[in-house]
């Protein structure tokens, strides 16, 4: 059964078709990658799925329910979490606090419970804190728990962002260029992590430029070019796909 179903999705910016009639599905429990040259519409596609951009046509369904048209926070509470190409951590908050915000969808203390510090919220807070520490440990950054997240090194910031996304216990994790700016060791570690995440029954959809990473870990690949889907296949088949090779080598014979 497909966890995420994208049907004839389009998004225009004025005359530009950033995403043009794209359809594909993400089966449950796999790692799927979206690749394509710069400007192919990958990040736009992510923003459409996560609800950050309204779509021009088509639909996005999650667990057989239409999610397009919902607000980002509603989509998040349905079980889709994400990271950003340009890291977006909360300024002025520690690494631990950043991850704790990730637990938002699975906790419930509201304004009144908070203002009156109701006893039942104490237990919830404790659980949030423990779970967040566990995730920081899982990503080897527990020692930076009380450091302001935005002052960490780049790779560590990526890890905090990933921990935050995992804290929301998503069923689908959207990773927007998770390897950007990482060195080869960090990238290898990331590959290991993503596989570990998948083993936790979390489906992963990632956008990535690093071909070795994509080919290593993903089970299916979608290739976009100028907003259109030009191929969808296994890594091996994609590597030998003539159209894909043509795009990546920049050969241009049909103007």
């Amino acid at each position, binding site marked *: 059964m497909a966890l995420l179903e994208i049907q004839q999705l389009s998004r225009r910016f004025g005359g530009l078709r950033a995403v043009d009639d794209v359809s594909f599905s993400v089966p449950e429990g796999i790692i799927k990658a979206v690749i394509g040259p710069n400007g192919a519409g990958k990040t736009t596609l992510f923003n459409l799925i996560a609800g950050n951009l309204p779509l021009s046509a088509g639909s996005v369904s999650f667990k057989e329910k239409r999610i397009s048209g919902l607000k980002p926070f509603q989509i998040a509470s349905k079980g889709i979490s994400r990271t950003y190409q340009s890291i977006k951590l909360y300024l002025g908050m520690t690494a631990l606090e950043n991850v704790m*915000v990730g637990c938002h969808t699975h906790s419930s203390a509201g304004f009144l419970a908070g203002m009156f510090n109701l006893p039942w919220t104490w237990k919830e807070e*404790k659980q949030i804190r423990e779970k967040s520490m566990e995730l920081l440990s899982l990503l080897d950054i527990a020692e930076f728990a009380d450091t302001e997240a935005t002052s960490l090194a780049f790779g560590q910031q990526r890890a905090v962002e990933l921990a935050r996304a995992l804290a929301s216990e998503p069923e689908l994790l959207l990773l927007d260029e998770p390897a950007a700016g990482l060195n080869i060791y960090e990238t290898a570690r990331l590959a290991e992590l993503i596989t570990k995440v998948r083993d936790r029954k979390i489906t992963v959809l990632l956008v990535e430029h690093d071909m070795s990473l994509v080919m290593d870990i993903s089970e299916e690949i979608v290739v976009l070019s100028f907003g259109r889907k030009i191929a969808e296949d296994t890594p091996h088949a994609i590597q030998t796909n003539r159209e894909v090779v043509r795009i990546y080598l920049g050969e241009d014979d049909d103007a």
Partner: protein
Amino acid sequence: MGLKKYIPIPILLLAVVAIQLTTHYTETPFYLTQLTMSAYYALLVTGLCLVMGYAGQISLGHAGFFAIGGYTSAALTTFNFTPVKDHAVLRFFDKFHLLMTTEDMFGDILLNFHPWAACVIAIIVTIIIAFAIGIPVLKLKGHYLAMATLGFGIIIYRIVLATEFFGEADGISEVPGFNVLPGVSVNGDFDARIQNYYIAWTLVTIGLVLLLNLIHSRVGRALRAIHGAEDAADAMGVDTAGYKLNIFVISAVFASIAGIFLTHYNGGIGPSEAGVMKSVRYVAIVAIGGMASLWGALVMAVGLSFLSLRGMFGSYDDAVFGAILILIMLFAPDGLLRLHYLDKVKRFFRKTEDIS
């Protein structure tokens, strides 16, 4: 759990008592009047601090909410409703004993709202207006939001200035005392000065505890996340629009309660309380307190309001607050009471030691 956040509360209470005792033994009890008024302004400022420093939104309209509370309460407790006492609305309130009759100096019977009823109605009115304004306005960001809330403040100011019911330029005077509890009355009588000083500070303390709790809760974390990276907060399931609206309304209620109590304490309210410069002043105080510092906002609100009420700034009152805003934004955008200033001072002394 997490009792650390309450540590400054007993210190605050000790300071409050110490100041009262000092004024008693130095025979300067007149300071208590301004300290009481400053406390109510501090209540408003701490509420605004949550909107600005934690949720990262700005409001240049909080004097408007202060005025809505003060004016509603003042009008309902002073306006003589006798001519319309058979109206269905008033009969409804009368049924629940929310009205009371008093006799004026000419022996005429006046029909007014009981202060408690007026207080509750004022808060409800504030909540309704805060929602009505907040829903469209909080969609804006940055200086657009500042301008929109400024517009709201100007509207409230012009309404109270032009409405006969609100006393036009004279405002409303002869507002009766507010018997909060039997034997506990908010009024400006000389012999009730000490009592009122403690009423005001009790209210501030309650407000502080509620806000401290909120800051250190799941909601407080979400608010700071909105401040830190709004779309990432949204992506983690935080209903950013709803949270911003709620905190805006809560701070409006704080402003309104401050307005209600101060109006009963002063025995009246005038249009200057609704003025735009008042809103600017509150924003300046939050800024100088360090934006995301409840305690900084409290200390600065009391200190600066006290100096202003004592007339220390003379006729340059508004100019002083304007200047403070400019200087803070230029030289200490984190506020004056930040620890790194202490560090700087420490470092300064350490250096001189090393040299010697």
